[in-house]
């Protein structure tokens, strides 16, 4: 490498290190707005995709509330990262190989956060907000939780900090991941050929947002779909079964406060009525829908019922 190339490379690393990570999202916002306006026009002209002004108002209000929550509680997350960094195992620093490794590991950490956010009710209570729209458009991408920091979502990234990845680097890739995931919330883009093999795409993420039994609990990827392929949660979109969006028990409200807190209220209600420690634990950290007598529906029970129906339909009647 020549001296000037080395100098340029070092300058980029220094600039990335100094970058205010909030600016990544701030700079992306005009692009978000423009893309939403374009998508609205495309939906109007093509009739491909759906919008509802009330639903979008709720989604955008949730995004606004998330912004306020970030101002109020974001410091807590950053403090936690820097606190954990005191005990880091290795001095990895800001180098290109570390950047590449951090990109992959941050994306894998996102996969596990996201998977557990669907599989454990305590984390689902925050994440359910993002899935609570019956629509799937770019405003849905902005329907974000207000309780992410209080719901301890950040703990899934702490192992990276503990290993020795600089907190600023992890925050930077988290911000890039968030920005990347915006554009995949659309029905106006179909399949994307070989891009679908490696990257998370609108098609893959439509499956993730769908409540059809065959699509439940699939495609948790952030940027790279490889983690779903690797850990066995990948489900391709099937043209014969259009996704239905939302949550299993669709919300009956557009009120942002009810959207933000309804699952937390549900946990509180169940825990205060629990009859044993096991029940408290199950209602809090069990799968969403867990109940002591199995009377409520979980993803697993919905999928099992669906599989049984499929099997019964496949067996010819005698």
């Amino acid at each position, binding site marked *: 490498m020549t001296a000037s190339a080395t100098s340029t490379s070092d300058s980029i690393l220094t600039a990335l290190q100094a970058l205010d990570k909030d600016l990544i999202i*701030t700079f992306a*916002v005009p692009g978000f*707005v423009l893309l*939403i*306006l374009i998508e*609205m*026009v495309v*939906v*109007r002209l093509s009739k491909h995709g*759906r*919008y*509802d*002004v*009330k*639903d*979008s*108002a709720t989604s*955008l*209000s949730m*995004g*606004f509330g998330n*912004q*306020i929550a970030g*101002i*109020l509680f974001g410091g807590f997350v950053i403090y936690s990262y820097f606190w954990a960094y005191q005990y880091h195992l290795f001095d990895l620093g800001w180098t290109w190989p570390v950047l590449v490794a951090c990109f992959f590991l941050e994306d894998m950490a996102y996969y596990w956060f996201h998977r557990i956010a669907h599989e454990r009710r305590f984390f689902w209570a925050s994440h359910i907000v993002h899935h*609570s729209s*019956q*629509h799937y458009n770019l*405003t849905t991408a902005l329907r974000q939780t207000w309780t992410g920091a209080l719901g301890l979502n950040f703990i899934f990234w702490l192992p990276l900090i503990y290993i020795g990845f600089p907190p600023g680097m992890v925050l930077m890739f988290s911000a890039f991941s968030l920005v990347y995931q915006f554009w995949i919330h659309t029905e106006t883009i179909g399949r994307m050929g070989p891009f679908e093999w490696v990257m998370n795409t609108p098609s893959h993420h439509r499956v993730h947002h769908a409540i059809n039994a065959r699509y439940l609990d699939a495609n948790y990827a952030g940027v790279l779909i490889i983690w779903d392929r690797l850990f066995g949660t990948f489900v391709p979109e099937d043209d014969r079964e259009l996704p239905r969006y939302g949550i299993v*028990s*669709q*919300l*009956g*409200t*557009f*009120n942002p406060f*009810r*959207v933000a*807190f*309804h*699952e937390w*209220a*549900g946990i509180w*209600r169940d825990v205060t009525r629990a009859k044993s420690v096991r029940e408290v634990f199950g209602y809090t950290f069990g799968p969403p829908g867990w109940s002591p007598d199995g009377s409520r529906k979980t993803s697993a029970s919905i999928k099992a019922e669906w599989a049984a129906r499929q099997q019964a339909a496949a067996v010819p009647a005698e």
Partner: protein
Amino acid sequence: MIEKLPVLAGSVAVIVLMLTVAFALGFRPKVQLNDAALAQLASNEGASIEAALIAPDAKSALARLTGGKIMVARAMGGDVSARIAPASAVHARLKGQKLSVQFADVGYPPLHMKVQTPPAWLADLVGEGR
């Protein structure tokens, strides 16, 4: 917090812009509940309707399903949201012609609808939920 206020004000302005455009483009779907829609919702849960009551504005409905469960449905713009629960888990009140149905679910606020002639099964429900 104070230094973030201009950013927050900008966000509000942009949200208003986007919603104005959505409104102007006519994204204001309205679904009307009817017997067929209720039957479909019930059948999704493996049940069928025994008796149903649809509000005059067709935006909300209450139905008694086979097996004794109760279903409520409400129009959510162009979509429908429903809840099915045992009659004992539903708190129903009838004051004059105004029916209120409440679930223990913050995500599904109480349903209020006008009932001109309450059917007999509704009186049973109001009695049970009391």
